């Protein structure tokens, strides 16, 4: 299997970026907060930034090996790079943009991406979604061995975004190239990628499928990224797993053993709100008041007791109501802080 | 305000020594004449020839001009004299020389042309590379800095730039009469008294001494 192997280190302004990652014939998303170094990883792979140490290879083809003094120029690496704002050449029409890299099957690509009718347009005159398709077609015209996408959806407004996300999902799946894409929106990552790597301050905190990240986040940061709320406290192992005394004194139970200062991550969909303390002593219950209630989709998203819960509209919770946030010990995921 | 004297470039060194108070403007005489006609605030006009003051006088622009000095035209060559010029006739022989001459209309330019004509060397100006400088200072600078192989200027200029140039006398028959004339400018607000005083100082014994010291001739001596 021809895959991309990356193992690089590079000193950035305020931390060292150090990433080891293999990408097979799959889509891997790098997510992380602004300034985490996501773009830098892509640029290093494309040869636009030179790592201080490390090795980059596509199958047997070594693009970079600092130890052996190998460092191929960007134009000699078989990458397809879709830039954040697409970086289409504003003075060339769509056809010339797509043909820039190779040219042979530019027309095919225009057809395939449904942009043949725009061939004579300048990039300035077409919509955001169309631009994205042009950028993708242009990157593919060179028959790259890897596809790199930097924030492919961030230039789009909310409406177009949902549509283009679905469309891009289809296109990427169809291509079957090793693909590394960068985004700071976890939902985009989930929608587009097979595996997700969470990059924070230059370090990969966790790499795994969306399910793995959700079910077993490596740390509090990853947990919050996947949408969980995190409570902090100190844990002691007990028979059923662990007993966690939260910072406000509340005691909850988790299903996995743990010791010392920990975070407890709970996803909104695992939390039930009830007016009374639950009868069931096996369940965790945190009492408190409702902070905010926001409709989302057909449900309400309620913030209460430091947690979030999704509840049915029918329940009619109102800010200020006294409630108990109830969740099972198995839903309390113990994470490192 | 000090009396303003518009004077020929060649007087640049001598005049300020005669009158330290006056305000000076040196340039090609023909240009100074044009400036005075355009309303320049000159009180006294001292030209390197008699033609310009008389022209101004005929238009009622000044009082009757008087001649106050004479000068001689010389051929200047750089001290190093790379073209090996010994006499004016050398300009007509050998390789093409770079010659600096003042523009037609500028007194020293007209004098130079007249002298060449008298020597039968009028062709020199066709044959060589001739820069027609805007005033005599331009001629001297081109020769002094070696841009030109030779140039026509006044004997007095050769003294000032003696460190860098050497003067070659012209044959007597070629020497045109060079007479400097001055006139007191008539215009509204002109400082006529100051101009007359300055003119008097120029023509005074000490003025004549200074001019002679600078290499000029003085009339009526």
């Amino acid at each position, binding site marked *: 299997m021809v895959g991309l192997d990356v193992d690089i280190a590079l000193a950035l302004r305020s931390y060292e970026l150090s990433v080891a990652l293999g990408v097979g014939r799959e889509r891997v998303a790098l997510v992380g907060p602004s300034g985490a170094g996501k773009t830098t990883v892509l640029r290093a792979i494309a040869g636009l930034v030179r790592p201080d140490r490390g090795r980059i290879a596509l199958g047997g083809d070594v693009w970079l090996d600092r130890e052996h003094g190998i460092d191929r120029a960007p*134009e000699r690496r078989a990458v397809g790079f879709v830039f954040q704002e697409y970086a289409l050449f504003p*003075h060339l029409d769509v056809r010339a943009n797509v043909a820039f890299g190779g040219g042979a099957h530019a027309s095919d690509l225009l057809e395939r991406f449904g942009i043949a009718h725009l061939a004579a347009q300048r990039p300035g005159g077409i919509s955001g979604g169309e631009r994205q398709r042009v950028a993708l077609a242009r990157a593919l015209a060179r028959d790259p061995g890897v596809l790199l996408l930097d924030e492919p959806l961030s230039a789009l407004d909310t409406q177009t975004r949902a549509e283009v996300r679905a469309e891009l999902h289809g296109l990427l799946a169809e291509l079957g190239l090793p693909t590394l894409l960068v985004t700071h929106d976890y939902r985009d990552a989930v929608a587009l990628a097979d595996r997700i790597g969470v990059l924070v301050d230059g370090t990969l905190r966790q790499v795994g499928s969306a399910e793995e990240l959700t079910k077993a986040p490596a740390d509090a940061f990853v947990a919050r990224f996947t949408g969980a709320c995190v409570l902090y406290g100190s844990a002691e192992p007990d028979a059923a797993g662990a007993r966690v005394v939260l910072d406000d004194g509340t005691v909850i139970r988790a299903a996995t053993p743990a010791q010392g200062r920990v975070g407890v991550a709970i996803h909104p969909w695992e939390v039930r709100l009830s007016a009374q303390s639950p009868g069931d002593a096996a369940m965790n219950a945190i009492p408190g008041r409702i902070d905010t209630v926001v409709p989302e989709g057909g449900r309400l998203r309620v913030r209460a007791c430091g947690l979030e819960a999704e509840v049915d509209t029918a329940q009619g919770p109102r800010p200020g109501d006294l409630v108990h946030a109830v969740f099972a010990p198995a839903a309390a995921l113990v994470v490192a802080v | 305000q000090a009396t303003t004297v518009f004077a020929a470039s060649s007087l640049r060194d001598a005049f300020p020594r005669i009158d330290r108070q006056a305000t000076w403007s040196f340039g090609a005489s023909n240009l100074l004449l044009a400036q005075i006609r355009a309303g320049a605030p000159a009180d006294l006009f001292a030209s390197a020839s008699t033609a310009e003051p008389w022209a101004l006088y005929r238009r009622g622009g000044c009082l009757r001009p008087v001649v106050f000095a004479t000068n001689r035209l010389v051929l200047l060559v750089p001290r190093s004299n790379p073209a090996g010029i010994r006499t004016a006739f050398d300009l007509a022989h050998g390789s093409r020389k770079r010659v600096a001459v003042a523009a037609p209309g500028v007194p020293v330019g007209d004098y130079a042309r007249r002298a060449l004509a008298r020597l039968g060397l009028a062709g020199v100006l066709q044959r060589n590379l001739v820069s027609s400088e805007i005033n005599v200072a331009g001629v001297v600078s081109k020769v002094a800095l070696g841009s030109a192989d030779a140039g026509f200027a006044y004997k007095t200029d050769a003294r000032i730039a003696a460190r860098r140039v050497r003067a070659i006398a012209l044959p007597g028959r070629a020497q045109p009469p060079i007479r400097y004339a001055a006139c007191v400018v008539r215009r509204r607000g002109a400082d006529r008294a100051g101009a007359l005083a300055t003119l008097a100082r120029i023509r005074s014994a000490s003025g004549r001494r200074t001019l002679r010291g600078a290499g000029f001739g003085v009339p009526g001596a």
Partner: protein
Amino acid sequence: MAARAGFTALLALCTGIVCVFLALPLVALFTQAPLGDLPSLLGEPVVRDALKVTVRTVIVANLAIVLFGTPASYLLATRRFRGRALLVTLTELPLVLPPAVAGIALLVAFGATGLIGSGLDRAGIVLPFSEWAVVLAMVFVAGPFYLRQGITAFEGVDPALVDAARTLGARPARVFARIALPLAASGLLAGWVLAFARSIGEFGATIIFAGNVAGRTQTLTLTIYEELGANFDIALAISILLVVLSAGVLLSYKVLSAWSGSTSTSPSPSARTS
């Protein structure tokens, strides 16, 4: 309400004064000149010679400026190296240098007794009194205008486009030719307009460095000065010719850039987010 009207009135007053002051001399040029005699005045041999010299030297000087200035400004704009700031400052210095000083400096450098001029002289290359001297003076004083605009223009090319071109397999030379050059073109053109105007108007450095050899180094601006004391109408006629020429260049540049601006500055990918 009074204060607000007062402020705008103040602005308008200043603008009025500025515009009248700038317009007046140009208007005077046309009202005072013997417009009827213009053709015959411009037909005088001295003008015709000067025009030929000016055209030749301006063309050569501007060719040199564009040919050497374009690669130099591209390198200075896009590469980072030690001493770069020094070189950039060096290219800007002639912009703030008085032309008379430029003339002196050229004289002591390339003049017959100058730093390298004496060597050139021995080698038989004589710059003073030659058309080349005019060209050198023009390049020295006008070149930096082109360089400065060129550096700005190349710096203004979105680096992402350059990166994109490289990941698409373009070598540096192709990136330059297909991406950087077309995108910097309008800025380069603006710089060239300034350099062109500056070279055609060159006076101070030329009069000091190149001499005033008719048919060889006497350009139109030198002729203006020479004719000032001789035939003022010729000076006026040349002035009008040069005003028309300068205004023509300026206007055609403005029309051109407005026109190209309207096609290429329509919302571009990078403009969208700013």
